């Protein structure tokens, strides 16, 4: 079977949706030259009216997408770096997200916000290394963090077809992942549906984005001592609570690994829901970035604030002992 890279999967999803629906268009910085590679070839195929380079005016072009959506289009906004979401936060959270309710259901805002390269990219320092999916989940904006090329394809397609605003975080740590897939099987992946990547009976590890691959590696490493199930929510809002409940019903133990600041993160939400709803046989654990982390520049310091495999293995062992 042919190899599909994560970046190429994003590119393919955009190309397929542009071809399928004339209302879809892509806008953002340097999307014509395709600096992020995600829009490679699209200008040639679809022309400059559907692949639009914007000036560095993030607030304006994000709100512009809302306006275009209100008038019947399905914009996809690419953000070069995760921090640009902070600039556009008002336009997404306070505008796009609120229109449906505030207009009494008169309108929908089908905009997709795509962030190829969220999280640390080694050496990009404090203002380029955040992974702010938790902020959008908190605000209630639909938020997906695909881990694999197939899911990246399927979730981008679903995001574009969805009638609400959806933020797609493509973690920098997953962009180089490749998978051996039959292109004919590429299909939409429903928002809000998790995926069990590896079955196990002793403990459920909830891993988000690129950390799914770390969790799988740790699960292999611990195979001699424990049977680890790896659950990938794929969508962090709305979260697949039923899927997770099924998994935890079988394992009774829970560890979450989440590459985001600890306080009020998605991991915190998972543990809170577990406390409310699940019958755990041991206290759960989470591995995250530290509270309030600002990613320092020097590579070893950058790594030191991200969750790593050793921390995850330690957390799993601890939960199994309790």
């Amino acid at each position: 079977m042919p190899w599909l890279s994560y970046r190429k999967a994003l590119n393919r999803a955009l190309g397929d949706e542009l071809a399928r629906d004339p209302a879809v268009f892509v806008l953002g910085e340097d999307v014509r030259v395709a600096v992020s590679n995600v829009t490679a070839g699209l200008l040639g195929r679809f022309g400059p009216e559907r692949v639009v380079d914007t000036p560095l005016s993030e607030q304006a072009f994000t709100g512009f997408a809302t306006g275009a959506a209100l008038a019947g289009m399905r914009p996809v906004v690419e953000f070069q770096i995760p921090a640009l979401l902070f600039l556009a936060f008002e336009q997404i959270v306070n505008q796009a997200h609120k229109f449906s309710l505030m207009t009494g259901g008169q309108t929908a805002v089908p905009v997709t916000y795509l962030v190829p390269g969220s999280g640390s990219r080694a050496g990009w320092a404090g203002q380029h290394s955040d992974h702010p999916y938790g902020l959008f989940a908190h605000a209630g904006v639909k938020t997906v963090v695909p881990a694999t090329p197939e899911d990246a394809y399927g979730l981008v397609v679903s995001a574009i077809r969805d009638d609400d605003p959806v933020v797609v975080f493509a973690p920098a740590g997953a962009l180089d992942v490749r998978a051996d897939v039959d292109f004919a099987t590429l299909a939409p992946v429903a928002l809000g549906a998790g995926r069990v990547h590896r079955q196990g009976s002793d403990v459920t590890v909830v891993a988000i984005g690129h950390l799914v691959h770390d969790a799988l590696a740790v699960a292999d490493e611990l195979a001699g001592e424990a049977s680890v199930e790896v659950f990938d929510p794929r969508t962090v809002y709305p979260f697949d609570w039923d899927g997770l409940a099924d998994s935890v019903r079988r394992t009774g133990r829970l560890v979450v690994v989440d590459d985001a600041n600890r306080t009020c993160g998605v991991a915190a939400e998972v543990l809170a829901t577990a406390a409310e709803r699940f019958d755990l046989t041991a206290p759960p654990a989470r591995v995250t970035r530290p509270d309030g982390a600002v990613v320092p520049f020097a590579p070893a310091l950058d790594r030191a604030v991200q969750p790593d495999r050793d921390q995850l293995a330690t957390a799993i062992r601890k939960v199994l002992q309790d």
Partner: protein
Amino acid sequence: MAFLSAAAHADLYRVVRLIRRFEERAVELVRAGDIVGGIHPYTGQEAVAAGACAALRADDVITSTHRGHGHVLAKGADPKRVLAELAGRATGLNRGRGGSMHAADFRLGILGANAIVGANAPITAGAAWAAKRAGDGRVAVSFFGDGAVNQGVLLESLNLAALWRLPVLFVCENNGYATTLAVADAVAGTITGRGEAFGIPSATVDGMDPVAVLDAARTAVDRARSGGGPSLIECVTYRFDAHHTWEHRARVRYRPDDEVLKGRSRDPLDVQGSRLSDADRERVDAEVESVVDEAVAFALSSPHPDPEGALDDLYATGLRGRPGDGR
């Protein structure tokens, strides 16, 4: 153009040369893997930093951008410590915490480079307001690119600076592109027109000539110091190298070859170098070479910071949050 002494011409040339050689060596260190994450080379634009900073007092302040090494060096930062910062070493200006896009030296009035386009403009205005309140005569300079002129926050800052007559100098480096987007495809109206709309005296100058930049900056700085409020200078320049060193590996094409050739044909090194005698130029070149050699040696022999202290200084008060593994 103002008359400058031979020594003043040599000083300007020294700064241009220092930035050029610093950047060339930094690119080599990126290629060698000693600088992780790459850099946005300032090569070609040296006349802007050299000219503008030559108009400043030691206690004036500047803010800078993702392409900030030139500004930081021109304001007097120690090349050894700037390069050590780029290499992520404990001896760097920011103790390895900031890297290329955040170099700062507060003792020299360098309030920091900034990785978010346009974000430094309001910071500069606030610093200028504080200087005005203190009555210490200090001036604040905001360097930014042509890409920043389409950021709302920059326009909002022009308004505040004009409204409150703040001692600010807005220095736009128009190098023709914001990453791959040409100015003609991004900027409606003009850059100076943005300043003029707020009643800010705005001028376009030759950004390949440090003396032309110095002239304009002096006029603006004098105005600011004497209570006349902000000015904007658009320096027309050209970026000789990549937007960022990742371009050295990626195939991105957006500047026609003949444009690049033409853009590089007028080199600030030669513009300013031609004002020195051959002997003086050679002497300065040799001095700069040893400064840069020393900087490389210092950076590469400096210790790496200890990961245990990754979040040192997160809070000024010393507050410590919980670690990521909860222990």
